[in-house]
């Protein structure tokens, strides 16, 4: 509600320059990618301003409804009551389950994953590795990635309060990269060679399996608008969906829609 209020204020301040300004608000998982796109778009089109704000998926969707952002971004599927808005998939992202490269475990089933985060599987030995405790890392309450993880993996089983909690994809990756007995979940786009992404139900996350939605933990990155986009917003969306825009997203680690 309040972040909505804030974006509203921001919108008012900028509304004087309408036409050359486009405000995008929402998911912080998508924010860095859109910032990159906006940076390049603005290099092509001198004089226009693409304003990229965070706030979270829900706040982004609300700010579109309230006309304070031209485009909202969401890193989760729209809920039933939000379906009246126009949605455009700009890319696909997988939620990768990552462990330390020394970890011998290569494959987990969805239910094993759920049991780990519910605190029911406590030792790596139960998965055929060392006798040490599993240090599982989750994201903080309110994070879109955590929402998506809870929807796709936990199915209403609460994440155990023993979990380590970090507030960004990057810091989850840092912990897993340094602790051989840790496990965490992050956006596939930022997996690097310092961590190992596990196969889920036998399927490895990669460009193909995510695009074909065979990898089970796949989520869309959405642009949301209230009415059919027009003007600058439309032009920017076309740029994002163009081969050039998609190439930028793929270079940054997302999976394009083509």
């Amino acid at each position, binding site marked *: 509600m309040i972040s909505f209020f804030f974006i509203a204020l921001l919108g008012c301040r900028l509304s004087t320059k309408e036409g050359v300004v486009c405000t995008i608000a929402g998911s912080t998982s998508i924010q860095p990618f859109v910032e990159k796109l906006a940076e390049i778009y603005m290099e092509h089109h001198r004089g226009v301003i693409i304003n990229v704000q965070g706030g979270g998926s829900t706040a982004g969707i609300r700010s579109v409804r309230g006309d304070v952002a031209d485009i909202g971004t969401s890193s989760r599927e729209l809920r039933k009551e939000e379906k009246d808005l126009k949605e455009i998939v700009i890319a696909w992202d997988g939620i990768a389950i990552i462990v330390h490269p020394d970890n011998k475990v290569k494959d987990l089933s969805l239910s094993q994953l759920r049991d780990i985060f519910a605190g029911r599987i406590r030792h790596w030995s139960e998965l055929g590795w060392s006798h040490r405790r599993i240090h599982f890392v989750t994201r903080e309450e*309110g994070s879109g990635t955590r929402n998506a993880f809870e929807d796709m993996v936990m199915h209403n089983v609460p994440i155990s309060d023993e979990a380590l909690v970090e507030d960004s994809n990057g810091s989850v990756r840092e912990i897993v990269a340094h602790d051989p007995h840790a496990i965490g979940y992050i956006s596939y786009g930022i997996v690097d060679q310092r961590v190992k992404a596990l196969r889920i139900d036998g399927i490895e996350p990669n460009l193909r399996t995510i695009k074909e939605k065979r990898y089970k933990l796949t989520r869309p990155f959405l642009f949301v608008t209230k009415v059919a986009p027009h003007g600058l917003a439309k032009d920017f969306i076309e740029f994002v969906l163009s081969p050039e825009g998609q190439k930028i997203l793929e270079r940054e680690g997302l999976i394009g829609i083509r």
Partner: protein
Amino acid sequence: MKEKLIEKTLMLLAFSAIGALLLMAVFIFKEGMPIIFKVGIKNFLFSTHWAPTKGHFGVSSMIVSSLFVTIGAMIIGVPLALACAITLAEFAPQRVTVILKPTIELLAGIPSVVYGFLGVVLLVPLIRDYLGGPGLSLLAASIILAIMILPTITSISIDAIKAVPYSYKEGSLALGATHWQTIRMVILKAARSGIITAIILGMARAIGETMAVIMVAGNALRLPQSPLSPVRTLTSNIALEMGYAAGDHRAALFATGIVLFVFIMVFNVSANIITKRWRRE
């Protein structure tokens, strides 16, 4: 006429600090109180179940963690700080003290994120490899905080020890007491209020520290089971979840701030009372 105006203006300025303090209290209470009333004070303070997006707002595990982390920092930090203070005020030659005191005070100026980072890079792996657990823990947070509050406690304690009248010391030495006996039985007793003030201010700093703690404490919600458990303090709860919080969740974070605010005011007021007594003595 002009003089009067100036005086009035200056008086207004003098109230700026206290005005800001009041405004701050008003705003934080205004944002946070509704949710406390909604879930009930008892529920809010004594429940350990924190799942704000699902309607559970219990902060008791964070209160306990904050206290444990602070106490841990005190157990590690206070002896070191007092040792430094006694050495520098009593044993070290004047020339050394003049250099070392500001050097220790410099420790207070190092950004807390740098402490936190060093904790993550150096301390956490040591704890993980040699003591077990994920390394991000109550112990790590306490050690980092202990180092961070050292300068505050040392510096104020040195001042307190130096403020003890020289005649006390002379009298004791003249009676045949050794230097250490004099320090232990005369000087530390006389400087007691000052040292306690220093410790309380150190505690206030420890319980209020955020960034360093969030980096090394692990932020788990469970009540700490051992020094190696990851813990979430009141401060890290606010900083961790503020990013996306909306509605009741956001209000609950402000309510966490209220709890912290009350703790800090208790520390401040008691430090103030003790300092007054110290001055009177």
